[in-house]
């Protein structure tokens, strides 16, 4: 970790600057008209206009879709982290029949190309009557988010010495109480990162989300495709929508920032 020194700070600042340039360009594009964007290079918008943002805010379809996306992403993140925590603990602390095979099988679900799964998913969720609900998307995203959560959490649980479990058992803690009161704070870094990654991967996934919904649960990403129309590409509308999609995730990481950056200290137990 950085313990002072100017060089790391300069390096970091340059990197963050490079990271921000395309993001700045997106914001720049969202504040210009399409003719303006296509007509030439402009380092900043000379005639900034919030017109495309107003288009989005005034259209109930966009607003509704934003809420839908937030709902299924939130459901998915909660499910993923909650079911993954005990499983990750089991994988790290115990041996059981088929543990290694099961763990690797879980990982293989991350490697499936979503494009080929779209049609079978449609059939499945249509058959169980969940088609066009937020639950369909939330459950479908569990396919990759639950294994991811188990995997990341297992890595962080491995960093906690087993003595802590044993001491708590001797002190008379029941397993659930020990897990929530003592263990969870110790892996707060891992839980924070996991929650953010689950949120992020569910938020940016578009193919399954659009395949599994029609009208009532249409996600934001599906409404975005409106900017590709017969009359050509609406660059600034897509840019404005893109800028808006960054906000919820930025809020999430802001809230988990202290967990991610939390130092490991046994003294808290």
């Amino acid at each position, binding site marked *: 970790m950085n313990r002072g020194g100017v060089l790391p700070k300069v390096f970091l600042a340059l990197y963050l600057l490079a*990271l921000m340039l395309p993001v700045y360009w997106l914001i720049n594009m969202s504040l210009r008209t399409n003719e303006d964007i296509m007509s030439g290079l402009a380092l900043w918008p000379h005639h900034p206009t919030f017109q495309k943002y107003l288009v989005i805010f005034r259209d109930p379809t966009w607003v509704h879709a934003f809420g839908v996306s937030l709902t299924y992403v939130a459901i998915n993140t909660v499910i993923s982290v909650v079911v993954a925590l005990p499983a990750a603990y089991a994988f790290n602390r115990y041996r059981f029949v088929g543990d290694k095979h099961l763990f690797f099988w879980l990982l293989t679900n991350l490697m499936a190309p979503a494009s080929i799964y779209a049609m079978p998913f449609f059939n499945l969720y249509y058959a169980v009557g969940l088609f066009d609900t937020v639950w369909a998307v939330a459950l479908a995203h569990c396919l990759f988010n639950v294994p991811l959560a188990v995997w990341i959490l297992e890595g*962080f649980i491995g960093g906690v010495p087993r003595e802590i479990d044993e001491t708590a058992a001797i002190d008379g803690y029941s397993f659930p109480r020990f897990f929530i009161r003592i263990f969870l704070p110790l892996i707060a870094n891992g839980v924070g990162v996991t929650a953010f*990654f689950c949120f992020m991967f569910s938020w940016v996934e578009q193919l399954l989300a659009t395949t599994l919904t029609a009208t009532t649960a249409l996600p934001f990403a599906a409404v975005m495709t409106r900017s590709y129309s017969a009359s050509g590409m609406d660059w600034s509308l897509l840019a404005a929508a893109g800028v808006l999609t960054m906000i919820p995730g930025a809020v999430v990481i802001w809230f988990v920032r202290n967990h991610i950056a939390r130092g490991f200290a046994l003294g808290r137990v």
Partner: protein
Amino acid sequence: MDKPFDNRAWLLVLPVLAFVLFSALLPMMTVVNYSVQDTMGANNFFWNGDAWFREVLNPATEMGARFQGALMRNLAFSFVALLIEVPLGVGIALCLPRGGWSVGPILVVLALPMLIPWNVVGTMWQIFARADIGLFGAALTGMGLHYNDTQEPISAWSTIVVIDVWHWTSLVVLLSYAGLRAISDAYYQAARIDAASRWAIFVNIELPKLRKVLVIAILLRFMQTFMIYTEPFVVTGGGPGNATTFLSIDLVKIALGQVDLGVAAAMSLAYNLITITLCWIFYTIMTQQDRRGAA
């Protein structure tokens, strides 16, 4: 390994199994089903055995040659992307402050590229990389480079790498940073008493502690780069020629463009098996050391 053997641990794993099986089992069977059938359209499928697999995996056939070409291009791309992203990501994580007011804003900036939907990422880079109206393209051309991401294979290929590095290095940074913060201060204090150099601390304390997290970062990035689709599809459309026609792009071209479900399903299964095998090899090598370390 001194892990206790206890089959009751299965109870802790059951919820995960239920959620993943629900979504994984039926769709997988459907794909397997397609891969062994042929269609004449109108939902008439007939048994085709392993013919599709033979065609896809034999480089002498047209389909096979195409598959092999896409596979090689994709492996080269994954390798270069990982080679840049992993060291850069760990390096940046080491430069991040340990605490204080700046952590929050820095984490938000790091997270921003990952939060943009992939089609928007492609679209913004399409403009950003143009020499006439985009900053990136204009800057490169201004420096006297011969850059054109839609006409020139090398420009196109490196643009996709730059986009991937911009988009995903933060994933390595966030994982490494959380991993670094989870290291107990006692190790650093011991190192200070021994007057260890910065490099010695990195090699002897930080790197070993980060190993599990790095395995996750490397495998995850490998899978994602190996399955990359949206960015090259939007920015270069797989071209020029087939310079950026990676596996997924080729797969979708066959499945949707030519309505060849059978060969596409066989190809995607072969593709899936290659991904799983490569990941299994990485995974085994990287966790082998873990076991040796614990023994």
